[in-house]
């Protein structure tokens, strides 16, 4: 059973900063670091014994490479290129996914109509979209954009569909009895109840999107994180691959857990159960 948590709107900023300090302490002294430390130690030992072959670079050397690409600013240049593609593709995917999801959630006909293609879309690997876009569009911007669009819209559509289906007919009846205007109902009833689902859609869709975009860059791009990973693969430089992917993964985790998850939790604060972590 969940315990009701008292969310008071006028909690003082002092309390808020205290809470922040506490959660910060929780992060610093978290046992999770122990696991990561252990992995690093094992990794160091392995690389020590296989030393010199370059195939298993030590964590220290990997870190040095990471520092190198960070300090030279190259990481941010490539990250910028990747993010532009990602954002364009993802905005399109959100648009398409919302339209399909709303249609599927509100009408039986459209649900049946789109069902098969959405299920197929959910299950085909991003690799397929990446390869197809690269063959068809080459190194144009359209390649990653299309791959992202088709790989991630199904995930957005199913989340939105769930949200539309979960709209509470009783509440809508209530607004009708009280003769509330249409626009006000959209603003204050429909959008708030859809919001958690929209945010969940953004979160799952975004994860799929950036993976698809990296893949497209691997096969056909002349810049971006994926291109750098590909470059290092061809140079047989494991530490390059590790450095680039860990940095990029880190940025994505930061976006997910630093922005998207808190946003989701904020907009769901009226719900009794606080969202389960991970």
């Amino acid at each position: 059973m969940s315990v009701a948590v008292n969310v008071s709107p006028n909690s003082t900023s002092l309390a808020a900063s205290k809470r922040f300090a506490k959660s910060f302490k929780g992060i610093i002294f978290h046992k999770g670091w122990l696991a990561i430390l252990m992995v690093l130690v094992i990794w160091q030992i392995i690389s020590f014994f296989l030393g010199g072959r370059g195939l298993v670079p030590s964590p220290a050397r990997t870190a040095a490479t990471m520092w190198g690409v960070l300090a030279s600013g190259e990481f941010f240049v490539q990250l910028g290129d990747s993010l532009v593609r990602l954002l364009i593709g993802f905005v399109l995917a959100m648009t398409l996914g919302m339209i399909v999801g709303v249609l599927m959630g509100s009408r039986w006909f459209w649900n049946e109509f789109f069902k098969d293609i959405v299920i197929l879309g959910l299950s085909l690997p991003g690799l397929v979209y990446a390869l197809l876009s690269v063959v068809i569009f080459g190194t144009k911007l359209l390649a990653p954009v299309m791959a992202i669009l088709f790989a991630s819209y199904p995930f957005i559509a199913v989340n939105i569909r769930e949200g539309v289906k979960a709209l509470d007919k009783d509440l809508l009846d209530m607004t009708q009895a009280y003769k509330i205007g249409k626009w006000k109902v959209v603003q204050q009833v429909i959008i708030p109840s859809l919001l958690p689902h929209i945010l969940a859609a953004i979160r799952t869709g975004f994860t799929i999107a950036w993976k698809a975009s990296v893949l497209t860059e691997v096969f056909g791009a002349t810049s971006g994180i994926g291109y750098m990973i590909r470059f290092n693969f061809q140079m047989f430089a494991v530490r390059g691959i590790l450095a680039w992917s860990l940095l990029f993964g880190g940025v994505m985790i930061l976006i997910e857990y630093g922005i998207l998850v808190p946003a989701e939790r904020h907009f769901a604060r009226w719900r009794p159960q606080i969202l389960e972590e991970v």
Partner: protein
Amino acid sequence: MTATAINPSQIPSATRARRFAQAMKGFLISPRWLFVIIALVVWQTYAVFRNSRLIPTPVKVGATMWRILTSGIFFEQLAASMTRILIGFSLAMILGTIIGILMGSRKSYDQFFKAMVILGLALPGLIYALICVMFFGISILAPVTAILAGSYPFVVINVAEGVKSLDKDLIDMSRSYKIGRGKIVRQVILPSLLPFILAAIRNGFAIAWKICTLVEVFGAVSGVGYMIKNSFDQYAVYGIVAWALMFGGVMLLIEYGLLVPAERYLARWRPKVKQVI
């Protein structure tokens, strides 16, 4: 509200036949075919109109699919991929179940593994695929290791959730009736874990075959991913589409024909079965 409980075994076969007929009718007369028809017509028209080597007609894709099916090459490559997937995923199930049980039962284990699992969920399969190919070349160790590393976190989160949702009251109840340990495991713990394990298999498997394809693209001389890569190198879009659709079809068949029904059956005592679509 009046709800009448219907026991399926009591339905006379005449009604069952009628229901089957109705379900078939619902399947045949459905807007889904409208979509298929519209999609095929639009695609065919566009491909003919563009007349580009890069945009194959659906007829050509269909012919390719038919060719690789009848020549037996599809099953050959499918078998190669499936072997890798099954070995890698079995290992992922073992590792994921162990960690999942640990995380679900002790808070300190949960904290210990959490960061690793989050990182594992977040990193794209591509990285495991590339690194394993560099380490192991075309040996079977490459796909197996990549699948293991890429899919075990998905197993972990499902199993951990199952263990966390075990009902302590039911275990206490069994203890109070002096029921033996083995019987508690078999009749109390296992049944409530099974739906979660099935969900773990379903989610993990979906990741596993995708990673396997990736590994085969970068470093293998057989398997569906290798065939896709071959088509890619020849700019043969029809080949990529044909292989991807057929492989995807087989995986959908496994998921919706085997795993989903199994999950629904094992969770039939639960009031609400979460249905994806």
